[in-house]
């Protein structure tokens, strides 16, 4: 039986690998997800035949309760709420790892069992990673949902406090190796880890959540791996490593999209973000010139004369739930024979791929969605660039203004288009807290209003032309 179980775990790992491989294309992705789900089902079913499992009532209760909660969340969640959903799922994964490690700890504390050095180290590691993921994810969830401040949080003694907590965890682990089974020590280690998770995510600003969520995703994988080390189970190690790698890659892509180091993001905000918001009023470094604005009718006429349009969505589109109105706009323009494409910046929205999911929800064909590097050279040949709820990622200052905090960040070159229409609610600065010189460019027009209302009005005007 043991051999059959081990081979089934191997098969399950292979299903995970093929499942992720099939995520390489939107055509096969859904099938890939099904492969992974089957891999998971297989792992669960064969584990139930393990000789260590003798009672089933708690297992059945746990599966039913967890399954019902998970399914309800998955069915109810809105597509705009996806970053929160992923955030909270990360948290549950991390929490499960911590609980399994603690459960193992209390099994081994029995005098007839006893700890090896390896047990002590892997359990401590599993508790640490799992607990940081657990509380960190819930803080991230709170920030996305709006009940924890989305601002960059800085307080005196921040770094010494974090370093102190890391020291406690390290010392606790060493002590636990020397004197295994010291319960209060393990509980201290657990508390320090839980607190560390809160303090590590709290300083991260709302618009940096793509990085935080990706990193927590990676942690949730590493937590599963750590549990694998505790239990000596290769499948947990493999599956966890795959997820860990995935999260790290996404984290690095997000950081590159902002031209910032991971440390800079984790320690909170743009280098000058704290001061920029207060000094932005200083007139000296404000871009000079006139801002021109258009109303729906004028905007419609600009579109009517165009033959190619690129739409640049940002977080503002998600907030206003404007994706359906944008789909209607796309259809109207295409009916007129205008070529419409979408340019998506890697850090647009609150998580990797956020814009793509919303546009897919609105039934916009995925072959119209272009990544930044695939479309950036096309702006000079484009008649109209329409920006909806994006700001910093289209600020030309990133290309030439060495004094700008976002200097060097890769941006969408919307200003190279013949005409740029910027839909925004107001002239307020974006997340980086700086003014956008694009708004003052001669080829730029502001089209003020909530994204959903503004695009709907635009659609009506285009219909009447």
């Amino acid at each position, binding site marked *: 039986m043991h051999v059959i179980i081990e081979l089934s775990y191997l098969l399950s790992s292979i299903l995970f690998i093929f499942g992720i491989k099939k995520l390489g294309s939107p055509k096969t992705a859904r099938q890939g997800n099904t492969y992974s789900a089957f891999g*998971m089902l297989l792992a669960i079913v064969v584990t139930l035949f393990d000789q260590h499992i003798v009672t089933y009532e708690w297992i059945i209760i746990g599966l039913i309760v*967890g399954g019902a909660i998970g399914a309800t969340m998955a069915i109810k969640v809105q597509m705009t709420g996806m970053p929160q959903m992923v955030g909270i799922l990360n948290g549950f994964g991390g929490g499960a790892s911590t609980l399994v490690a603690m459960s193992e700890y209390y099994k081994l504390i029995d005098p007839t069992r006893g700890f090896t050095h390896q047990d002590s180290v892997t359990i401590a590691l599993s508790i640490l990673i799992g607990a940081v993921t657990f509380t960190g994810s819930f803080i991230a969830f709170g920030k996305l949902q709006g009940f924890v401040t989305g601002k960059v949080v800085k307080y005196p003694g921040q770094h010494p406090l974090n370093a102190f907590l890391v020291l406690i965890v390290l010392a606790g682990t060493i002590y636990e190796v020397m004197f295994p089974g010291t319960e209060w020590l393990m509980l201290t280690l657990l508390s320090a880890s839980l607190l560390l998770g809160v303090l590590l995510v709290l300083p991260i600003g709302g618009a940096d959540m793509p990085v935080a969520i990706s990193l927590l995703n990676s942690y949730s994988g590493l937590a599963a791996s750590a549990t694998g080390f505790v239990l000596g189970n290769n499948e947990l190690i493999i599956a966890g490593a795959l997820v860990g790698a995935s999260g790290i890659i996404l984290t690095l892509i997000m950081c590159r999209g902002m031209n910032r180091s991971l440390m800079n993001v984790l320690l909170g905000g743009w280098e000058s973000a704290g001061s920029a918001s207060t000094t932005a009023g200083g007139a000296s470094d404000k871009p000079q010139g006139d801002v021109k604005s258009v109303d729906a009718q004028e905007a419609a006429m600009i579109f009517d004369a165009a033959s190619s349009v690129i739409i640049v969505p940002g977080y503002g589109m998600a907030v206003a739930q404007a994706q359906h109105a944008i789909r209607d706009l796309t259809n109207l323009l295409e009916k007129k024979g205008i070529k419409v494409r979408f340019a998506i910046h890697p850090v647009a929205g609150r998580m990797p791929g956020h814009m793509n999911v919303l546009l897919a929800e609105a039934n916009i064909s995925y072959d119209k969605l272009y990544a930044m590097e695939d479309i950036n050279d096309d702006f000079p040949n484009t008649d109209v660039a329409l920006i909806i709820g994006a700001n910093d990622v289209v600020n030309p200052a990133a290309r030439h203004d060495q004094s700008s905090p976002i200097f060097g960040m890769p941006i969408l070159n919307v200003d190279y288009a013949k005409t740029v229409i910027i839909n925004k609610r107001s002239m307020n600065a974006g997340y980086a807290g700086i003014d956008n010189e694009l708004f003052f460019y001669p080829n730029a027009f502001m089209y003020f209003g909530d994204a959903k209302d503004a695009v709907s009005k635009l659609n009506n005007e285009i219909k009447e032309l």
Partner: protein
Amino acid sequence: MVDILMQIYVFVLAIFVGFELITKVPPTLHTPLMSGSNAISGITIVGALLSAGAEQFTLSTILGLVAIIFATINVVGGFLVTDRMLKMFKKK
């Protein structure tokens, strides 16, 4: 000692497989990638089942039960929501 060395081998090789696979996922699918891979990290459920199914009912089993609930939320929620998203990615 041999055991843990073998485990580290497996871990490191799996990380490399992960890097190879994930770099081929297009940006348009990054959200489903996250939620899907997240569901995979719910594999901890295997450990949770072993903890909760032990003979005697102890603190260890209670922790195992809560772990099952957490891991099942992760697994079921993750795979279902990923499927919901991937269903929407259409080419016209």
